[in-house]
């Protein structure tokens, strides 16, 4: 049984179809990449799965359980953790206290929460920042704190929303390593939305591509990247090879 099933999910805002009949599955212990040009509806889909807002139509099944109608905090408690693109620096809580909030999801004991938090901080290699305030940390570290917080809630599935945004290449490498460890050592499945394609290619077992709210490709990374539809979505008609022709460019590309 797949861990997550998204069945014909559509999300409409006023006149805009942000998600249009999207269906896919995510198997247990899989890393699924979600890519697509800007405005394709990736974050919307994320928010639907996380329960941040209700879907207009369709079903979402997590671990055999229909979570379509559940609110975000209920979805979180069932084992789906998420990160946010815009991370607001906490004025009030220190790093370790932040992570403890994650731990408090399933634990009511402060001492236990603290242990879990410290352990997660260590796993992410940022134990030395425990006592600091988030605003004092560089971006890459702040992202790790967010990851630690998500980990502390012992999720089965982690939704990562453009986690590489704002990171330089070496930081991205570090992030890829960390995510891989989270996946392999903790057995957590990942749904990764990214603009930074190297990250997706390095991590994902499978990739889904969205364009204008619709799913246009679903397969392993190498295949998807060569898919004409995907190329067309990202780069436009000129570069999409006709069926049977080799790669982008070529004679077709010279036509205006």
């Amino acid at each position: 049984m797949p861990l997550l099933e998204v069945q014909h999910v559509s999300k409409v805002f006023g006149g805009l179809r942000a998600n249009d009949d999207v269906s896919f599955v995510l198997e247990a212990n899989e890393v699924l990449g979600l890519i697509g040009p800007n405005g394709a509806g990736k974050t919307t889909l994320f928010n639907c799965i996380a329960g941040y807002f209700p879907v207009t139509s369709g079903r979402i099944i997590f671990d055999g359980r229909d979570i379509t109608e559940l609110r975000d905090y209920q979805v979180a408690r069932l084992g789906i953790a998420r990160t946010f693109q815009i991370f607001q620096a906490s004025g009030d809580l220190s790093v370790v206290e932040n992570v403890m909030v994650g731990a408090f999801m399933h634990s009511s004991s402060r001492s236990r929460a603290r242990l879990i938090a410290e352990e997660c901080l260590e796993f992410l290699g940022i134990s030395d920042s425990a006592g600091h305030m988030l605003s004092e940390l560089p971006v890459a570290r702040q992202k790790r704190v967010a990851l630690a917080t998500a980990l502390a809630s012992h999720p089965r599935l982690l939704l990562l929303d453009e986690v590489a945004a704002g990171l330089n290449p070496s930081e991205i490498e570090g992030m890829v390593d960390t995510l891989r460890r989270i996946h392999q050592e903790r057995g957590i499945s990942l749904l990764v939305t990214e603009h930074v394609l190297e990250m997706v290619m390095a991590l994902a077992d499978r990739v889904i591509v969205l364009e204008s709210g619709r799913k246009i490709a679903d397969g392993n990374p190498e295949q998807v990247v060569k898919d004409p539809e995907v190329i067309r979505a990202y780069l436009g008609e000129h570069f999409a090879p006709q069926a049977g022709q080799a790669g982008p460019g070529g004679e077709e590309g010279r036509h205006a």
Partner: protein
Amino acid sequence: MEAIRNAFDFSDFPRLDLTIAGLGILFLLIFPALPHSSFAMATMIQFLMFSLYGMGWNTIGGYAGQVDLGKAKYVGIGAYTTAVLMIRWDIPFWFSMPLGMVFAILWSFVIGYPLFRLKGHYFAIATIATSLVVKDIFEVWDFVGGARGLELPLKGHFPDFLYLQFREDYYYYYIILGFFVLGVLYINAFRHSRLGYQLRAIKDNEDVARSLGIDVHWSKIKAYAVATAFVAMVGSFHACYNFAIEPEDTMSLDLSILIAMMAMLGGAGSLWGPIIGAAILVPMKSYLGSWLGGQAGLAGLDLVIYGAIIMLIAAVQPRGVWGIVEAVRARKRGSHAAA
């Protein structure tokens, strides 16, 4: 239970703070033995009461960040429950006070459930509105004496620990001091608790809080109930200490404002903040009030000063006196790290 351990866990405060707090407690304990005027004693009792009011307010206004300007109605519920139960059915303070707290908490759920759909300014205005409504109701309700209020009958023999009637103020002083100490311990346990952490996450960013499994609406309601309980408890005490209550002095907007102002001035969202705020404003109000009371033309000057102080604090350091302390410490820490 871990909560009990948490209550006594002050380990995250630097030793300086704990020393000062210790000295403070010592002073409070021996105060009645020191030479003092009855005015000073009355001021001290007020200080302890307002510290408790402030500590209660702090759970919802400070830790959760929802500014509540209508706490006074629960003071009234506590006070009136004690008064009515004593007048009609001779029920002692130690039974009527918990009952008052229970009523107040029940009402806080009823009012809180819709109230917390609102945020920020809108929430604050709604709290004022509900307070005004409750006060209006009490002013026309004969069962509680309407605008004239109620007078608690004298039991005759002093000291009376059952009904909390004493001739000498120091009895009242030690009882409220006892509540004060319990209050501090409770808030300490509260801020170390799961709810305490969750409220701070809520105050920071509600979306992130919900993504961490926190039921924001319900958490706020819980914090509101705690604040209500504190405030009702002191209200009951007030009824016995004053021997008479009326809507104007137990449920007025001015009282709600004072409570919120003190906690905010001292530092909303911190353990010591409300106490500091009360320590500054209560004596100031008392002594300024009595000095000015002599000069008839200067009524209101004390509040003019408070208003100005609040504006200053809001513009410069919204986290109050305690915020200033923390900012200074952070800067010192920062310069150490740089060195």
